[in-house]
């Protein structure tokens, strides 16, 4: 039990929304990971669907590369749709 692998848990709160990462847990295999996720993360009816993913299967960006990865987007204001006149009567934009 000591070397149970780590699983990342994603819960879909309700139909039409995406699965959202809610946390992680340990379990010996995928079936038990799913059941543990049910016990740990949907105790209060938080979801209608659960995904569990082996944490080892996730390739993550490294904190050291944060600047190279994300900073260049910071000064490219033209990527944000702020240069358009809002048409009369257009709602929810």
């Amino acid at each position, binding site marked *: *039990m000591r070397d*149970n692998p780590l699983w990342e848990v994603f819960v879909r709160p309700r139909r039409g929304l995406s699965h959202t990462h809610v946390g992680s*847990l*340990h*379990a*010996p295999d995928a*079936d*038990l990971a799913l*059941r*543990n996720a049910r*016990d*740990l993360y949907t*105790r209060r009816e938080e979801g209608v669907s659960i995904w569990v993913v082996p944490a080892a299967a996730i390739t993550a960006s490294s904190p050291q590369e944060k600047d190279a990865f994300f900073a260049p987007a910071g000064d490219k204001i033209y990527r944000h749709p702020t240069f358009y006149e809002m048409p009369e009567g257009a709602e929810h934009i």
Partner: protein
Amino acid sequence: MSDVNHVLGLGDDALITAQRLAEWSARAHELEEDIALSNIALDQLGQARLLLTLAGELEGAGRDEDALAYLRDEREFRNVQLVELPRGDFAFTMVRMLFVAGYQAELYLKLADDDADTVAARPLAEIAAKAIKEVAYHLDHSSQWTVRLGDGTEESRRRAQDAVDALWPYTFELFETHPELREGWLGRVDPVLDTATLTRPADADVTFRPRGGRDGVHTEHLGYLLAELQHLHRSHPGATW
């Protein structure tokens, strides 16, 4: 089948099961299992509260769930002996949960069906209908673990088989009141044991079939359990959080 002792028996089964499972709090092999066992204990406690409340109403002597849980002595408890045996190791707890949840699943299905028969059966049928989903999960949880332990390492297999051998004689008492439920129960339990590569004794080979729980005759273990369960309430009557 709504008489006081019948309902009391089912309530006591759930109460003692909850207490034995609660003993695992902070002792399970991992945090995740700790929470699962506590969840299941609380499900059983919830069922016990409803059943004992109903038993008190049927009795009509003014006893509520607390009076029944905390102020009865050992000989007045009506649970089967299977649920009061000490919690043992994890394999013992899982195999017992498999046997108990399989029984409760069959029983609650039947009781929920009795709804149509009489008005008197309705309150019990409503409790049973609510409990069905909960015990289905307890059955799933214990099935998952029984398979992993039985079909696991040499050590886990030995422990799981020991648990089946030790517990099997106590399962006969479950079907004293409703013998017709045993076939359905075997239909739930046998496939799990098969998948787990565990064996159980043939009925003809089981001569030791302890019984008496429904009449208030218990193993030596129940008294100690009740001492722990009841002492706070008895030392400080009416204590609240």
